[in-house]
């Protein structure tokens, strides 16, 4: 329906390299961003590795596409939820992730963090309010 914004959530559960899911998921988000919906992303299980800082994909034979996550703010994708339990199970701390930010147009273009660390219970609530969910 025209002029009706829906809430889209893209769930990323897989490691960035080894399969094409993470890259395809990211491209889908970027393409979908053109439709001006309310888009957010969730990272859980091995998906949390997608946001890890200082990636080196050299030996995988895949391009290191992690810099592209930094463009998400330009595409107005500003809500990236990372499940705390998945991070901890993999020995990762929030500071091991890329410091992704966006400029808030409604607040004098202040830089704000895009990544939010949430518990699995909080993530469940976020899932609850979505209109459309994609799994990658």
């Amino acid at each position: 329906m025209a002029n009706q914004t829906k809430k889209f959530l893209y769930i990323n559960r897989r490691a960035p390299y080894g399969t094409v899911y993470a890259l395809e998921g990211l491209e889908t988000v970027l393409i979908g961003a053109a439709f001006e919906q309310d888009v957010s992303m969730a990272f859980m299980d091995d998906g949390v590795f997608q946001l890890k800082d200082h990636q080196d994909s050299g030996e995988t034979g895949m391009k290191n596409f992690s810099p592209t996550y930094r463009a998400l703010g330009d595409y107005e994708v500003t809500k990236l939820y990372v499940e705390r339990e998945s991070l901890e199970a993999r020995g990762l701390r929030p500071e091991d992730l890329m410091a992704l930010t966006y400029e808030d147009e409604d607040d004098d273009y202040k830089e704000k963090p895009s990544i939010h660390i949430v518990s699995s219970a909080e993530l469940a609530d976020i899932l609850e309010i979505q209109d459309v969910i994609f799994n990658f």
Partner: protein
Amino acid sequence: MSFEVNGKTYETDEEGYLADLSQWNPEAAEYMAKEDDCDLSEYHWEVINFLREYYEEYQIAPAVRVLTKAIGKKLGKDKGNSKYLYELFPYGPAKQACKYAGLPKPTGCV
């Protein structure tokens, strides 16, 4: 497909985008533009160089909406609007300028 400038051969895909972006140089850009009857001015080059920097940083060619906003921020509001960019690149600023910049077609561009 391919084309040749000054003895160097450039491979392209079926839409004329460079197959290997590391092959790119300004001569190739000038040639591709000429083929489209487009003479590259310093204003075209501002956008082309901007796109190359954007790709270098983010590993993607930005969508036209994102390009327009980012150009406005970098080069000023009078250039960050679709009228200005479409005058420079009538076939679509993202699509056409990315081609001359040696980048792939923007993600999500049909």
